[in-house]
């Protein structure tokens, strides 16, 4: 079983590439990505509001990978502790941030329910959900606050588009496709 992760990932990407990476997601890499993308947005004369929104969403999506990815299957070519893929692309109406990572089968349902709950909510409900989690949930052992996805949905004002494809009996491959509009 299994399939080509990179092809599957690129099937979902569109636009002009600003950054692409496949491998271990560590703190140093996150710094480098943030610097590169921020410089590019400044060079492109993006409106500060768009620039900040892309930056914020990028921080959350990369740190989601950093805190939450499950280790890849044992027979997978890359055995990094925090293996993931991501790309930042420019499209006509804004920016697309695509992330990809393995999810253990027993975590699939929980993640999907989490996303579906956010996607069923109105903007006002997402705002309330954010405040509720902020005020009532402690930071987890992994270091995440449980707010990342909610924050991404709130800041972009868009639904969280994702795919979850079964990789083998123990793993699925998860892709999150985030769209930051220039207007909103």
């Amino acid at each position, binding site marked *: 079983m299994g399939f080509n992760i990179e092809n599957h990932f690129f099937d979902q990407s569109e636009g002009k590439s600003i950054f692409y990476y496949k491998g271990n997601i560590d*703190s140093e890499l*996150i*710094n480098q990505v*943030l*610097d590169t993308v921020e410089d590019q947005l400044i060079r492109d004369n993006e*409106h*500060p*509001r768009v620039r*900040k*929104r892309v*930056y*914020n969403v990028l*921080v*959350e999506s990369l*740190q989601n990978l*950093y*805190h939450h990815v499950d280790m890849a299957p044992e027979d997978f070519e890359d055995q990094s502790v925090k293996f993931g893929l991501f790309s930042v692309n420019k499209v006509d109406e804004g920016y697309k941030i695509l992330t990809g990572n393995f999810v253990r089968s027993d975590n699939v349902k929980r993640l999907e329910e989490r996303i579906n709950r956010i996607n069923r909510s109105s903007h006002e409900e997402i*705002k309330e959900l*954010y*405040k509720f989690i*902020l*005020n009532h949930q*402690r*930071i987890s052992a992994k*270091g*995440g*606050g449980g*707010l*990342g996805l*909610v*924050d991404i949905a709130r*800041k972009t004002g868009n639904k969280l588009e994702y795919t979850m494809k079964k990789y083998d009996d123990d793993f699925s491959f998860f892709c999150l496709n985030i769209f930051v509009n220039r207007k909103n």
Partner: protein
Amino acid sequence: MEPIIIEGTPKTPTIRFDASEGIFEIKGRSIPENSVEFYKPLVEWLDNYKEAPLDKTVVNIRLEYFNTSSSKCILDVFKKLEAIHKAKNDVEVNWFYEEDDEDMLEAGEDYESIIRVPFKMIEIND
């Protein structure tokens, strides 16, 4: 009490907490992977300050970016300030946001709705 002064880095904010003047400032970017580690000493310092605060404490929050894990730590800072306020001391939070940065204004309003301390929203025009 010794003040806390921490210079900012690309991922952590500049901190100036001065107990003798009662002016506390958090400024810059707060996007570390491990925000608890960064904020823990600040929260502990506020615990001590809380024992004998000045009549008036002014808190200036001038953040350009913060990540969601910092948002919880910043709430912990505000909760300490709320306790000082509750003990009948004057506490005022100035929440600065750059012109057009609605997201940062909304973030300030989130805290304002959770924490019972007077907030002032101040727009910065460059």
